[in-house]
């Protein structure tokens, strides 16, 4: 059986009047976006691991406290893009505040920005050819698929489908990273299964993975249009 198709959008649920629902929704958003946000701070803003973690945490807290998440208007674009804009604004502001503090505290100051000819400061130049939005999208896809895999793992654990997940993990996850991916026949021999059953198990797991990814995507998008657009970018062909 596939995962349920319709799930409550956490993007919309963060506006709930119910504090518990709001907190659950924020947990859902943090779960999906933590890694992309953290990685973006590391690559775009060149922060070290610890500062990037602090900034990511501070960002989600500020997003809820300052009402950024509530103010998101699904009519005006994708939530992912909106979040990225808020994130960059937040980090820029935090860095300005940190600079002021350091100046005032007479501490040794290592400039994070380089002075322009006119004395203004700017951010460090990015690596040539780096498409930050594409990188953010890739991390977002990684996060989504990782969550879907974990969801599938949890669903299969202790059930008759545990072997299906074991085959899936061995062939489609570990096998993809390894130089010598096992054949279906080898997997069958390892698990005492005929090749046709290995094929069926893998097809089942892939179908469930797709359903899990789409279910998670449904949660973190705010409208049907955004959901379909993101799903096409993630799993299908772009609209003609």
């Amino acid at each position: 059986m596939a995962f349920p198709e319709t799930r409550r959008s956490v993007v919309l649920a963060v506006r709930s009047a119910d504090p518990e629902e709001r907190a659950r929704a924020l947990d859902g958003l943090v779960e999906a976006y933590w890694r992309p946000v953290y990685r973006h701070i590391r690559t775009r803003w060149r922060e070290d691991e610890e500062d990037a973690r602090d900034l990511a945490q501070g960002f989600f807290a500020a997003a809820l406290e300052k009402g950024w998440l509530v103010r998101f208007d699904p009519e005006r674009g994708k939530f992912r893009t909106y979040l990225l804009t808020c994130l960059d604004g937040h980090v820029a502001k935090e860095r300005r505040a940190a600079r002021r503090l350091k100046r005032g505290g007479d501490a040794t100051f290592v400039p994070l920005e380089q002075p322009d000819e006119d004395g203004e400061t700017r951010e460090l130049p990015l690596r040539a050819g780096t498409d930050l939005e594409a990188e953010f999208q890739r991390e977002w896809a990684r996060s989504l698929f990782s969550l879907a895999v974990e969801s599938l793992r949890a669903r299969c654990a202790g059930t008759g489908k545990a072997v299906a997940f074991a085959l899936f993990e061995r062939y489609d996850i570990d096998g993809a990273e390894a130089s010598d991916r096992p054949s279906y026949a080898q997997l069958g021999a390892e698990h005492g299964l005929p090749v046709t059953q290995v094929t069926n198990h893998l097809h089942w797991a892939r179908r469930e993975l797709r359903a899990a990814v789409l279910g998670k995507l449904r949660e973190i998008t705010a409208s049907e249009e955004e959901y379909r657009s993101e799903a096409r970018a993630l799993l299908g062909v772009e609209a003609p």
Partner: protein
Amino acid sequence: MKELGDQALDHLREVAQEPDLSGTRYELGEEVARGGMGVVYSARDRELERVVALKVVAAEIADPETVARLRREARIIAHLEHPGIVPVHDVGALPDGRVFYAMKLVTGKRLDAQAREVPTLGERLRLFLRICEPVAFAHAHGVIHRDLKPQNVMVGPFGEVLVMDWGVAKHREEPPASRSGAPPTPRPASDHDTAHGTVLGTPAYMAPEQARGEVDRVDARADVYSLGAILLFLLTGQTPGRTKASPEEPTRTWAGPARPPAALPSRRLAPGLPRALEAICGKALAPDPDGRYATVDDLAADVGRFLEGERVSAYPENAWRKARRFAGRHRTAIALVVAYLVMRIVLLVVARV
């Protein structure tokens, strides 16, 4: 939570796109093609033990118009039984909700790739006539293709021609104001196009009235325009409106009154092209539908006349051109007469001496 590596992520994205064929009569093969409307896979039909092509659209994530278009395309093709149109075997929904139709798996090359391998003018024109046949057949059954271009024509290993991609075709009984009557959205250029910088995502093969979205005016003559553009491509390697093969230059459709044959860009691009053929292209590509051939049969007949060395309707001849054509057509007979006359003159001169 276990973090996925780059390769695992790419692989999972790939396998998650594969259609789920469990419980169906099909066994998934390779991805054959990917386009704006869906993905085409090869698949083995276990029931009939043959390989087919499955065109699949992810209905759960595609926009409803795309799904409707796929179903409409399958229905239209199913009603057009012609050797130049790929037969549809089956249509339906897969267990994961995606919709598909099964059709004959076509082997061969797309016309844009094949055209370079057709060496002579005569062969290119005969190939063009084979493209006209299924289109004329569809018109006779009330169907306008509306997206004819070299990328949608397949040429088989024995020179057989198949007109593909009827996804934006329109049946004359469909109400013009319906959504299905909307003009096709210009599609991104394929890899081939981009590589050669000739199409670059512009509606180069689309009739002007269709490109302007004048749905009520789009009829069979829109396909005549597209066929004219295909003919021009076959003859010159260019699309209408292009005078330079520069990727930066925007492609445009011809505008304004129909141009005289001598003003066609193809004349400059292919100096050896006969003027009568330019005139045929010019008439097929007239901006105003009333200036074009009324039917595909008329266009094909003119091309056929050119091949036979006869006078083409699109090209008014003066006496000199008429004589040249006559001479070209009866070259052997004229050569014999001239040789005979020369011989008589020589004999006459010799006799007098």
